[in-house]
């Protein structure tokens, strides 16, 4: 079965206020898709529906031609997820957290230990592996979440702000990891605010504005269509962003009073 992710008219409302409206798209193997939108545009809500933490109010989500609600266990087995905020069990050490994540997915034995040790080494966490997560910086926690999401070799990675708090070296590393995973046929949905990274990493971008998809194409094609030089300009145009220079001047003047 081809691992393909498809959303058909997916909507979600909270207290009758629509947050995600009729979102549809399809992602195939090897695709890295940037999921963009301003704060409150519905990105995280979409991501939560995609991972099954939140049921859609309307529409369906399919993976490998099967509705994910029909066999959620089978879907979860092929899913890796990094949440928007690094909510972890902070009383555990880094290595304990990864062992917990692996154990809960039924992974055991020397192969898992090798995987965990390797991931910690690649992310530069070997020295702090035994320290409690409460002592980790935001970037270190993010690395643990990324490692935990990949331990079971998932076909689909849903990543909500995965580069948040990472240093430059780590961002370069994670970008290369995404590329390597895509070459192996994994699907990566990368929800982010960082337009620079998305432009460099993603083969395709979906832009969300007030819960609706307003663009779904490659950056190059969108730029050519809209006659705009880069993703930042495209994003501002599509989401009707106010002039940031004017807003900055207003704020500085306000603080001086």
């Amino acid at each position: 079965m081809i691992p393909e992710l498809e959303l058909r008219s997916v909507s979600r409302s909270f207290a009758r206020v629509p947050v995600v409206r009729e979102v549809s798209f399809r992602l195939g193997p090897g695709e890295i898709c940037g999921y963009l939108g301003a704060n409150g545009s519905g990105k995280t809500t979409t991501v939560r529906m995609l991972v099954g933490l939140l049921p859609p109010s309307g529409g369906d989500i399919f993976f490998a031609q099967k509705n994910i609600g029909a066999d959620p266990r089978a879907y979860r087995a092929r899913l890796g997820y990094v949440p928007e905020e690094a909510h972890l069990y902070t009383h555990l050490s880094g290595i304990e957290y990864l062992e917990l994540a692996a154990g809960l997915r039924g992974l055991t034995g020397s192969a898992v230990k090798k995987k965990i040790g390797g991931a910690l080494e690649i992310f530069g966490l070997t020295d702090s592996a035994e320290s409690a997560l409460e002592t980790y910086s935001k970037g270190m926690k993010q690395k643990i979440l990324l490692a935990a999401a990949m331990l079971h070799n998932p076909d689909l990675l849903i990543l909500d702000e995965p580069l948040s708090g990472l240093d430059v070296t780590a961002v370069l590393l994670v970008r290369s990891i995404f590329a390597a995973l895509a070459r192996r046929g994994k699907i990566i949905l990368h929800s982010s605010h960082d337009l620079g990274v998305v432009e460099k990493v993603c083969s395709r971008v979906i832009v969300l504005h007030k819960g609706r998809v307003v663009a779904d194409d490659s950056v190059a094609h969108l730029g050519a269509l809209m006659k705009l030089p880069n993703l930042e300009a495209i994003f501002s145009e599509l989401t009707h962003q106010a002039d940031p220079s004017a807003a900055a001047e207003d704020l500085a003047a306000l603080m001086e009073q």
Partner: protein
Amino acid sequence: MARDSAPVNARLFQFFFRSFFISDVLAPGGDPRTLGITAAAFFAAPGIAICLYMTIFGSRLNTNPEAAFFLALSMTLAPLLALVFWDELLPTRLDYLVLRPLPLSWPGIAAAKLLAWIVLLGLFLLVVNAFSCVMLPLVNSSDQVAGAAVLRRIAAQALGVGGGAVWAFLWVLALRGTLAFFGEARRVAMALRLALTAALLAAIVVSPELTEPSIYRHLAAHPPPWALPLFWFLGVTHALTGRAAATWNPLAFAAGRQLTYAAVAAALAYGAACWRLPRQALAPLAPPLRGPWPSAWASRQPRRAAVYRFALATLARSRRHSLLLAAWLGLAAAAVLSSLASLSWAFPAPTIEQADAVALAAPLALCFLIAIGIRHTIAIPTEARAHWLFQLAETEPAPERLLAFRDVLLALAVLPALASGVLLALRIWGGRIAALHLLFSGTLMLLLAEALVCRVRKLPFTCPYVPGRANLKFWWPAYWLAFSAFSFGAAALERSWWAHPLRIVGFSILALAATAALRGWNRHWRASLDACQFDDAPDPAVQQLFQ
């Protein structure tokens, strides 16, 4: 823009004082005002209730045993307060990292924290003791006293209970400061804190025994070392009211001396810890406590083993959960101690069979209360927003992972209680009785563990907790009956069958059969589950009868 330092210091004090009521140990996310009022009512209740009980039922107040009881209550509750707020006793690493970059002096921050503690302790002692301090002299039925004499008695009682409580509190502060100065030996600190918490809770539960005149007389005649502080501060109360000066004045002077030692020790330790903290704050924290988990109990099934290890790590490291479990341990210790104490003043004197039965009941009582404590503790979630890990890793049917709870019960309740029971039996009665006890108690404990696993569909620490679900107000007689039957009832039965070992063997076979049947039923029930429960809705406000 000019800034006045006085309001800044006042705000710092308010910040520290308010932080006591938003502690994650007590009520994460709770309303501070509600927590404050609830806590005040909770701690004032015992003093009020006991005074009223004594008044209504004609007990003579202001006699030595009653005064000793209220003093003991105050002297145990004050250090317990310090243990609950163990991490907040001193300025914390977070205080340093957040407040130091602001234009505030470090000694000023430390002083504000100390002032917040002084005010909190003062209010706490007022809440705990105010009613009894006034009631004791007022309702005294033996003396005809009025006016200034009553006020003097109130002041004497207040100074006695206040002095004793402050003395006990200061020693905990000194201990905390010393441990912090020497770099937070976390394993030692955690073990000490939990042991002290359990011991103090046991002392609170046992302290009403002091009102039994025979016990009080025995203690007063030959006070053991642990009871000396009680008599020092009882001496303060009686010396100030002018009673038997030859007896009480030396004790009152001893109380003053001991209070001075405690104050000096606490001041030195607090100062030293605050002086050291800036250097420690930026150093990496020590790794969390690892084991020694009873890993041998972990299942070979990786999901179940993962949940089991997670549960043990959380019980050992989470301040809130470890304190709660320590409270149950204290209750268990109190149950055993009070039954042992009851033997010493029983009239007529207990038979050897009764004494044996109480000793046999101790491990069963420990097992029961620790097992119930574990069931209660693991229902309270930790890091609620991290549960997605368990939800998204649910890639197989639920049953196996749910059994991790039984593994935890076996490792932390059944195994230690059974081992202590068998060792005790071996020491007192020899190998034959120890073997019978192992058989009898072991099978009963296994049955208890299986019974507690019934209908559990939550993984430990991963589901929101709805307070009041257990409906203790309604069910406490049933719980008490179950506890009494499991521990003291079963022990009496076991003792009566020592002469007929076949009966013990037969009973154990029956208990094993019941365990196997229950296990089969549990397996069948779990197989019908679609998923573990990660969300708990409160009961509807209106419930239909018989539903």
